[in-house]
Structures are given as C-alpha cells and as structure tokens.
C-alpha cells in the first residue's frame, strides 16, 4: 500500500503509509493544496494514515509552513502530535526558508567582522597587559617565555633549515633555465637573494610558525580552557592574558626575526649549491649578493617578520581562549589558529609591500 491524497476545498485527506518511501508521492499535491488554502480554514484528515515516520511528520510541518499556520488535524493520534512537536522544536534550532542564502551571506560577513574586531580587541588586551605588566610582574613567568621561545624557535630550526635549503634550490633551479638563455646565469643570485630576503624568508617563516606554534598555542590554551584551568586562574585573580598570552606573544616576537635569518641563510646556501653546480664560482655569487642586497632589505624583512610573529601568536592564543565546549573544540581552535595565522600574515605582507613601496624601501 502507498500513500494517497484526496483534495477537497478546505480539506486535505491523507491516507496510507506516510513514511520515507511513500510520502514523496503526495508531497507536491499536498503542498499545492495547502498553498491554495492559505488564509482559509483547512482541515487535514489523517484518519486513514496507517504508518508514520519522520518523513510524514515533516510533510505535515511543510504543510504548516506553506499554509502559514497550523491547520485543524482530524484523526491525529497523540504520537503524531508528539512527533510534530519535536519537528517544530528541531526547526526552531535550524531555521529554514527562502531568506536562507541572504542570511548566510550576512552571517559570513557578520562572523568575519566579529572575528576581526575580536582579534583586534584581543590584541588590544594583550598590549594593555604588556603596558601594565610592571603592576603584575609576579604573574609573568619568565620560564614560560623561555619555554615558548624554545618551542617556537630553537626546535623549529631543523625544519626551517631544511625548507630554506629546498626553497633556495628550487628557486635557483627554476630561474636558471630561462636566465641561461639570455646568458644571465649569474643574475640568478640577485633574483633569488632579493626575493628570499625581502619576501619569501619572512613569509615562509610565518607559515612554519603558524603551522607549528600557532596551532600549538591554540591547542595548549584550548586544552586549559576545556579543563577549566583558565577559569581557575580567573577565580584566583590571576590574569590569563598576562600568564598565558604574553609569554607566547613575546617569545614569537623574539624568535621570528631569528628564524627568518636562518631561513634566508639556508635558502642562499641552497641557491649557491645549484649555481656552483652550474659552474659559477662561489666568490662570484657572494659578490653578486653583496652588491645588490642592501641592509635595508634585511631590516625591513626582520621588522615584518616580528609583526608576523606577533599576529600569529595573537591569532593562536585568541583561538585557544575562545575554545568552546565538546571534544572537538580544541581541534577546531587549532585549525582556526593555523588558517587565521597564515591568512593574516599574507594580508599583512601585502600591506607591508604597499607601505615599503610608498616609503621607497
């Protein structure tokens, strides 16, 4: 037996099996009839329905939506009414409707702006904590600063060296082929050195920092949040920003320029390996770099990298402090820290490019 529908003015009679397999057959007719009856009295007769599941109940809920109210139900058992109540409750939590797309775009914009303002407010809080640190000097634990610097800096050096050498190799190798056509093999040294020192060094170090340490900060603080450790600090009158955020923030500001220098150096070594292999003497490469790279390139890049470090630490700590409830919350925070850290470093890099260009650096 399947589901049947009988439509009369002011009355929709449903019968048979209103379950997931059969309810679809009467869905369109039922909704059309319900739409036609909008604003008039409507009776939905369910006396002949022999079988129900949530599909049937959802049909009733859709009829209500199209009809714009609750019709009179004839022959509805208490179970059907109870199920209908549950569907109503579920819909309150997950609102649906035509305005969904508009709402979701709006929601994306609002959530982006909220995240941005939250981040700025959090940075402000951290700066305030830094400025007023002398009044809370006891809460700031130097061991935490050195531990964070060790984690984010010293332990990252092997990875930074490896990636630096590889990037130098790849850049030199890729540029060598076209440059050789013009007999400009030697200028590969300028090309790679300038792009590494000015742009790629700080940016790659930022990506490594976001992946290694931004996520670790979010996970550490997030776990403390989930375990109520942060709440415990707050009740004891200890400021979590001073205790947990400042050491990490200062540590990244210290280690990022160092990591950038290590990455630049490793990249130049990688490049030199390719060029020496191509028959260019090492001294020529060194002279070429010394002649074309000015100290301003390096200073600008180091300043940039310190800002990237501060941003990544802020985004990571902020993600940790905003960790919600539930077992997956820490993972979500860590992901947010990595994505947010990398995106903000690249956006900032763009801003720096414009500023440096205007300033003629």
């Amino acid at each position, binding site marked *: 037996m399947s589901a049947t529908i009988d439509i009369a003015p002011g009355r929709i009679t449903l019968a048979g099996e209103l379950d997931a397999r059969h309810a679809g057959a009467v869905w369109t007719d039922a909704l059309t009839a319900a739409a036609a009856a909008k604003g008039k009295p409507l009776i939905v007769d369910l006396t002949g329905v022999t079988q129900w599941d949530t599909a049937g109940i959802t049909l009733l809920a859709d009829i209500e939506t199209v009809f714009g109210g609750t019709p009179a139900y004839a022959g509805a058992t208490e179970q059907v009414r*109870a199920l209908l109540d549950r569907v109503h409750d579920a819909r309150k*939590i997950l609102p649906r409707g035509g305005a969904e797309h508009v709402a979701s775009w709006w929601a994306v914009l609002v959530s982006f702006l909220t995240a941005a303002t939250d981040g700025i407010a959090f940075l402000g809080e951290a700066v305030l904590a830094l400025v007023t640190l002398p009044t809370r000097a006891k809460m700031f634990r130097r061991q935490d600063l050195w531990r964070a610097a060790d984690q984010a800096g010293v332990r990252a050096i092997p990875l930074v060296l490896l990636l630096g050498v590889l990037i130098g190799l790849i850049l030199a190798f890729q540029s060598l082929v076209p440059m050789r056509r013009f007999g400009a093999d030697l200028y590969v040294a300028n090309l790679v050195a300038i792009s590494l020192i000015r742009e790629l060094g700080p940016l790659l170090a930022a990506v490594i920092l976001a992946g290694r340490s931004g996520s670790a900060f979010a996970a550490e603080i997030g776990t403390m949040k989930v375990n*109520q450790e942060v*709440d*415990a600090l*707050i*009740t004891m009158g200890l400021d979590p920003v001073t205790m947990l955020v400042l050491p990490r923030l200062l540590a990244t500001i210290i280690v990022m320029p160092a990591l950038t220098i290590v990455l630049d150096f490793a990249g130049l070594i990688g490049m030199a390996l390719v060029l020496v292999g191509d028959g260019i003497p090492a001294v020529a490469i060194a002279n070429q770099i010394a002649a074309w790279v000015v100290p301003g390139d390096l200073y600008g890049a180091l300043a940039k990298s310190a800002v990237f470090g501060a941003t990544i630490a802020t985004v990571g700590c902020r993600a940790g402090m905003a960790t*919600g409830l539930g077992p997956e919350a820490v993972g979500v925070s860590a992901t947010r820290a990595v994505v947010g850290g990398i995106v903000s470093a690249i956006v900032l890099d763009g801003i720096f490019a414009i500023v440096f260009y205007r300033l003629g650096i």
Partner: protein
Amino acid sequence: MPLAPQHLPRLALNGISYRYGEIPAVSALSLAIARGECVTLLGPSGSGKSTALAMAAGFLRPVSGDIRIDGRPIMRTPPHRRDIGVVFQDAQLLPHLTVAENVAFPLRMRNRGRAEREKAVREMLTLTRLAAYAARYPHELSGGQAQRVALARALVFAPRIVLLDEPFGALDRQLREEMQIELRALQRRLGVAMLHVTHDQDEAMVLSDRIAVIEDGSLRQIGTPAELYDTPADAFVARFLGENNRLPGRVESIDEDDMATVSLAGGARIEAQAMGVGPGHRCIVAVRPERIALAAVSAEEMGDGAFAAVLREVGFRGTHLRLVLDFAGQTLVVRRPAAAPMAGLHPGAEVAIAWQPHHARAFRPEAGE
C-alpha cells in the same frame, strides 16, 4: 521596605538565560540560596547546570536575567571580585606551590597580612585533615588529597558562597562517598552557602539542603531531597531521581481527591495520584520499588488492590534484594530488605503485589514517550 541584608538570599539567580550560538543552554533559570544553605543543581549531562554555575561564577555572561550576591548585583563584577570560592572537577592547584602555599594563595591575592594568612591556612589545613601534607607539592598528592586542597583553597578566605562544579567527578566511588560526607560536615560547621553541580543523584542527596532538578536548561522542581524523592512533580524528576517503576496507561477518571483511575497498557486498573493529567490522557504511573509490598501468595489472598505477578529475577545487592517481576506485560522492580523472609520467592514463582494508591503517581508522558 527593602529586606535587611541578613534576610536576603546569599546568591540569587533571577531568570538567567544563556545560548551557545542558536542553541539555548539555560532558559530563564531562577534560584535563591540562603545563608548557610547547600543547594545542588542536579541534571543529566547537557542539561545546562554547569553553564548556570559558570554564569554565577562570572565565566559566562547571561544573555538576560540578573545575578545578585547579598542583594548586590554582580553581573559587571569580574569573577575574582565576586567573593566566591570555586572548586572544579580537577583540583587545578598551582604546581610550583606547596599545599600550604596553594591554600594561602587567595589570601595573598587579597593582600592579607602574613600572620593572618598563616593562622587561616593552619586552621583550614586542620579542618580538611591536610596538616601533615602542608609541605608537599601537588604532584605528591593523591586525587582525593588534591581535591581537599582545592576545597581548602576555596574556603580559606571565608567567601560568601562556594561554587562546586562536579567536585568529586574524577574520584573513585569509595573516595567520592567519603569526600561527600566530609564536605557536608565541613559546610555545616563553617555555615557557608554552597551551590553544587552534579549529575550524581546520590551525591546530591548526601550534600544538599535542597536540590534543584534541571533539564534542557529549565528548572523542573526544587525541594528537599525527601520532597523530590517522595513527591516528584513530573515524569522526568520521577525518572531521574532514584529508581522508579514506570507503567504506561490511560487515565479513565479522576475523583475529587485528585486520585486517578488508570487502565494500564497490560489491562490492569489501578489508582494513582493525578499529576497534571486529565481523563482520557495517556500517562506514566510511577511507583518506587520499595513502596511495593510483595508476598508469595495469590492476589485474592493478599486482599483488595493486590495484583498477580510473576517473579523473574532475584538480585542480591548487599543491603537489599532487587526483584524483577513481570506484571501485566510490563517489567516491575521491587526492593526488599535483604533480611526479609524469602520463602516461596524464587524465579518463576507466582506472587501477589500491592501498594498504597497515594504512593503511585500518574504523570504526563515526557516528550517523545
């Protein structure tokens, strides 16, 4: 005329609500805790009880409502200025400080003098039986000891109220029971007000002057443990607090004393106190296992209001026996003192059961039943 401060509730939650995104966690919860009173928020996990406590502590800000301590609004007061002690599920001790230093920590943060600090810490360590561990570090303590230190730290500065969020959840059963009794004695002795959150009904019964049962973020019933146990207000409270037999049926009629005649799904007709049900309604009849009299005789022999049932299982539980019966197509649990005579009570035996009509309560079924 405004009330004198000593008559105001220590802590008053007035219609507080909280939402996680779109999902309501606590809806218009109101609760007042008197001086020296211990109130437990009891509910299943996800019922919003910890969220309510987090709002009282100041970790979360309610979307609506008002929180007062001694009549003073505290919504804008940060947690460490609310003058509350908080005990979490994990002790959360500062690892680089000894037990005595941990206990002294709140006093140090409040700039109390050294002599006052030492005296208060000594007294509190004695009260919590920790004097011998004063020089130890947190990693040298057992779970129960660490939790006792956390308790001492929450009490040492004589807070207006102590909030406890499942404080013994991480301890094993025996230790938990010991700590419950100890905490109750300590609370009575110090006369401190407490708001305690748990999902463990036994813990709630032991610790509380009053229990507030919460589900889906709203208060279902508040009362003394005995009131909640003997006169639950709805089917959820009856199910959640203590073991209860739940027999589905339909109300036939209700007399002027609010006694309902219910025809059970299995065909039997019984009397029960009507709790918000009307004639023709489906209902759930709740009867406590210890309220059911049972004998190895026929229903006729037992007398009026007795029913026949078949004994299926006899379980020994130390202090009592837990008997499982088939009654009118339903499973029924009966509890008897272990020392009661057992002649004729073996699995498969035909027995008679009876209970006083006022011990049976007919509730509206819960949503989804």
